[in-house]
């Protein structure tokens, strides 16, 4: 019963946060809405017995990624008029129709796959402790883990390169 109540509350918070992100005129409000969605998803992970993923979700998304977003919003200014109402009304209506159809298609497709693909394991006893996750991560997926290390290094180098070439070319002339 407690699980049901927690799920309903935090599902509502997640959806409200996502709606805030979609409709807020001020990008800071959008970031805060997304932040509450991220926290709610971390709660969902705890309900699903995935403690390690929940902690990583809070540290990486709610901590690092959203802070980076807020930094960039503060850097490039919050008084941006490109708001929700800027699109023509027909385009907004079409967007919601497309998103609704997409949602229905996702649920239908997932339901079909679930009915044909599911076994009767329902609610298997699995706890995502650090030990369990690390056994799998460093046992089976070591190569993929190393590849992700290389990817992160390349991403950091790419960011430095972007900042550097931008400074080397200050007045917006296209590079020869």
């Amino acid at each position: 019963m407690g699980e049901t109540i927690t799920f309903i509350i935090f599902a509502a918070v997640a959806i409200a946060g996502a709606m805030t992100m979609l409709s807020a005129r001020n990008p800071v409000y959008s970031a805060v809405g997304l932040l509450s969605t991220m926290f709610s998803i971390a709660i969902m992970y705890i309900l699903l017995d995935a403690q390690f993923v929940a902690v990583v979700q809070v540290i990486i998304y709610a901590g690092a990624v959203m802070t980076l977003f807020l930094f960039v919003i503060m850097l490039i200014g919050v008084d941006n008029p490109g708001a929700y109402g800027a699109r023509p009304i027909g385009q907004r209506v079409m967007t919601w129709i497309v998103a609704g159809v997409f949602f229905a298609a996702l649920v239908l497709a997932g339901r079909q796959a679930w009915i044909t693909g599911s076994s009767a394991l329902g609610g298997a006893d699995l706890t995502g402790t650090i030990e369990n996750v690390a056994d799998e991560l460093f046992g089976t997926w070591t190569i993929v883990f190393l590849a992700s290390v290389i990817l992160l290094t390349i991403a950091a180098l790419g960011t430095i390169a972007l900042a550097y070439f931008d400074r080397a070319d200050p007045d917006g002339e296209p590079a020869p």
Partner: protein
Amino acid sequence: MTVTVTWYLILAAGLFSMGVAGVMIRRNALIMFMSIELMLNSVNLTFVAISRELGLIEGQVAALFVMVIAAAEVTVGLAIIVAIFRKKASANVDELAELKG
């Protein structure tokens, strides 16, 4: 009334659809980027829910890898947005039409 995995999947589908709507409806590049993050998060939620349901830890490992990719993507994407802003003084994607024929 207990929470089944279907509830989590429906919530994830809803969040993903809202992310899709955000990419289509907003013209601020930062908020489009936040919508992409929302879509990645909802996919992570399905991974973890299915992992729990089937009793396989692989779903949680996949969610961790998605987070790694998302972190790399955020650094590069925000650097690109800042670089564009320094050239055009705008984060509005409708004004980026240099490739228009």
